[in-house]
């Protein structure tokens, strides 16, 4: 590239030289100019022209061939040089000839072409084949290094129909669809089984048991937690009746699960506990960091690490539990569903525990002695706060996820306002009543139209109300701010027609 430009400059220079020389010639009487200089001039010009036209490599080649007298440059060099000057696309094979030094070798010393095929882009069929190969390799890896005898995962999800059901349940559904083991999904729905939930679940293609639970979901979070516990126990009853075999885990519909969780729970023997990250979501400024100035007596956890789960000592034995200290926040927490404040977890969430389903079966011989009888537990539905109520002695719980050091799932409770409306099954039918033409939407570079009717003007003030929050959260664009100002002007002067077109 550089050489070409240098050449061009050289050419230009020579051109200019020639131009400069021709006036010179004109000034001097032409006849006196010596033929030698003219000859060299013309030769120089010719050489430059050849270089320009043929390009650097060719011209060098031509000169080399014309003027070289030595016999040392081997034929292979010239041949391969010629080879490279030919368009290198297409499968031109390198010269397959014997080099003088070696006999019978395929390897030739010297310059080789860079072979590029005519369409150097991926072929979709081959990409698919490669993905098939990768999948097969991974299956092999899993069978060799992964869990030896994977057990069925039984996921229990309590849910009910509300605005956020679809996004939450879709998240859980997709996580469960990616689990590489056999899965049974037990969905317990408060208020009875509905078609809405059923249609959502059916999209997963998973084996599921969809049961309804009598009782509408209550309004207060306290009561909701209690009802969810009862729903989970109901699901465990189903496990017991149907004698489902596998590992029971509690997948609440607003939680987020990592796929490593499902690999890790395969290691459980009877009861296991994993660390749960607590996401205390909130709207505006939620000061979660508190300064513990006075330490009163026993202060369990100084650090506000929002994780619930097993606590181990250095020899990896369970010695206690990490819980998220919610006391400082209780007065700021949400009380009813749809409250703008954040929702706090209880001491130990169900989601952090996994059970061997045989614990709830009746009449199995090898049930360990420390498990309570089902009848005992099931009688008192109200008091069951966590699966720990199923065991007499909490020290038998196995800590999973490298003894609780790995956080494998996250707990979150986010709900919409109680009076929020959403279309059934999130399908818009019939079309919405208020249709605002696209020009009304404040795209930054679309020139705004003049309001043509009073109706549209009335709509404007509503937009100005909402806009402060929107423009506060996004980057301000000049047009929008101007718009806001002009819209405010409109607001002040009621129906006065000012030109909004400011762009």
């Amino acid at each position: 590239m550089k050489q070409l430009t240098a050449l061009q400059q050289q050419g230009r220079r020579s051109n200019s030289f020639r131009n400069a020389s021709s006036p010179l010639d004109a000034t001097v009487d032409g006849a006196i100019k010596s033929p030698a200089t003219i000859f060299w001039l013309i030769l120089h010009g010719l050489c430059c022209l050849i270089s320009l036209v043929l390009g650097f490599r060719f011209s060098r080649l031509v000169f080399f061939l014309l003027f070289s007298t030595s016999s040392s440059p081997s034929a292979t060099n010239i041949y391969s040089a010629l080879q490279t000057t030919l368009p290198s696309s297409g499968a031109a094979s390198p010269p397959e000839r014997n080099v003088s030094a070696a006999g019978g070798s395929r390897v030739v010393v010297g310059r080789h072409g860079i072979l590029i095929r005519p369409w150097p882009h991926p072929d979709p069929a081959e990409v698919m084949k490669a993905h098939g190969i990768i999948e097969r390799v991974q299956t092999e890896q899993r069978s060799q290094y992964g869990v030896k005898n994977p057990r069925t995962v039984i996921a229990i999800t309590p849910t009910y129909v509300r605005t956020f059901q679809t996004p939450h349940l879709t998240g859980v559904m997709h996580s469960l669809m990616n689990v590489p083991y056999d899965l049974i999904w037990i969905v317990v729905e408060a208020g009875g089984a509905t078609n809405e939930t059923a249609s959502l679940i059916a999209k997963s293609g998973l084996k599921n048991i969809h049961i309804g639970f009598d009782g509408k979901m209550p309004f207060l979070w306290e009561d909701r937690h209690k009802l969810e516990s009862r729903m989970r126990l109901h699901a465990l009853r189903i496990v017991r009746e149907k004698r489902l075999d596998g590992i029971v885990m509690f997948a609440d519909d607003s939680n987020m699960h990592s796929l490593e969780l499902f690999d890790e729970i395969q290691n459980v023997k009877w009861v296991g506990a994993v660390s749960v990250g607590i996401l205390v979501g909130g709207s505006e400024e939620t000061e979660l960091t508190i300064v513990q100035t006075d330490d009163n007596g026993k202060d369990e956890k100084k650090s506000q690490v929002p994780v619930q789960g097993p606590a181990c000592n250095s020899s990896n034995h369970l010695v206690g539990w990490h819980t998220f200290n919610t006391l400082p926040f209780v007065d700021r927490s949400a009380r009813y569903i749809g409250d703008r404040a954040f929702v706090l977890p209880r001491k130990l969430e169900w989601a952090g525990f996994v059970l061997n389903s045989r614990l709830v079966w009746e009449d199995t011989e090898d049930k360990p002695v420390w498990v309570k009888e089902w009848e005992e537990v099931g009688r008192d539905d109200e008091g069951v706060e966590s699966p720990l109520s199923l065991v007499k002695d909490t020290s038998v719980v196995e800590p999973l996820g490298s003894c609780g050091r790995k956080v494998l799932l996250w707990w979150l409770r986010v709900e919409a306002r109680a009076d929020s409306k959403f279309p059934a099954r999130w399908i818009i039918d019939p079309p919405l009543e208020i249709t605002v033409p696209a020009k009304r939407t404040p795209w930054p570079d679309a020139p705004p139209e003049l309001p043509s009717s009073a109706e549209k003007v009335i709509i404007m003030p509503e937009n100005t109300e909402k806009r402060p929050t929107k423009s506060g959260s996004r980057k301000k664009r000049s047009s929008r701010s101007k718009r806001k100002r002009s819209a405010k002007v409109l607001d002040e002067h009621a129906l006065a027609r000012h030109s909004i077109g400011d762009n």
Partner: protein
Amino acid sequence: MTKDFGADLVGPRSAFKFHRTQPTERISGSAGDVLEDDPVGRLKVFVYELPSKYNKKILQKDPRCLTHMFAAEIYMHRFLLSSPVRTLNPEEADWFYTPVYTTCDLTPNGLPLPFKSPRMMRSAIQLISSNWPYWNRTEGADHFFIEEKAIDRGILPLLQRATLVQTFGQRNHVCLKDGSVIIPPYAPPQKMQAHLIPPSTPRSIFVYFRGLFYDVGNDPEGGYYARGARASVWENFKDNPLFDISTEHPTTYYEDMQRAVFCLCPLGWAPWSPRLVEAVIFGCIPVIIADDIVLPFADAIPWEDIGVFVAEKDVPKLDTILTSIPINEILRKQRLLANPSMKQAMLFPQPAQSRDAFHQILNGLARKLPHDKNVYLNPGEKILNWTAGPVGDLKPW
């Protein structure tokens, strides 16, 4: 000497069974039962005592020699000094070793300079031929040298009859001597050990390569470096999502290799590269793009079964070639690569362990025994020409 394949391999990996109801299959040890030979008792090596200016002083001047690719010569010397194959009685020795560190002359960047090594070697040979009678007895036919870095103009004439242990393997090349023992380049075992990831991590990269495609410093127009093969790989597959290739130097290089199914090992200025060693250690199938290459321990390791060989002219079709390998072949290659004795044979661990590269070198030398009767010269007979070679080499060192 035949041993049955699939000989008992000690180690956790040899006991894996398939999960499905297929009959159980061991990772068969057909990667050369020869790898498990023990050289002790099969040969005896005598190590010449050279003045420290040939070895220790050089190392003291530049301790970087211990970690670069050609560090094998230093480690081999140390290994032989304390190995049971060493004998202090030269009369019963089968092989003679001259410890001279010829590649320990490094540029500030760490690349070895080949200029002084002929003179150094020549001076060492003069020393041993004048102080001991064993060189002249056979004119070096039962001596071996570790000649790592290839000198462009070929083997030193004085070494014509000796056996070279070298990393350079290309057929019909002036730098490869017939009958040499080809060894892998040195790769630091501890560093690789420190970057191991659990084997259950799924391999999700199809083809992996990190390195230069164009050597802009020495070959700006391309076509000389790697005989154009690396440039061809780049031009053909730079936008192919299956090929994770680039010139970066990521810190996760070793981890990435363990997540890849195929690792490209194309030639550079020389046909061999440490990538082969790294690919074998990390279980990534090596794709060797180097015509006429001779791979390390080729008589012991069945490289055809383990790696994929692609001719340089077939590089534009590399994706077709790799995706059309039957899946059973790929799984078999991975099983062979998982064989621990395979990985061990590529390493130079400190201290030496059984079946590692040091032992494989000795095995290679032992396989060349016994020496042919006619290497022993009659007294007074001379074959080598002591004044051959460029004049610059004849200067004393």
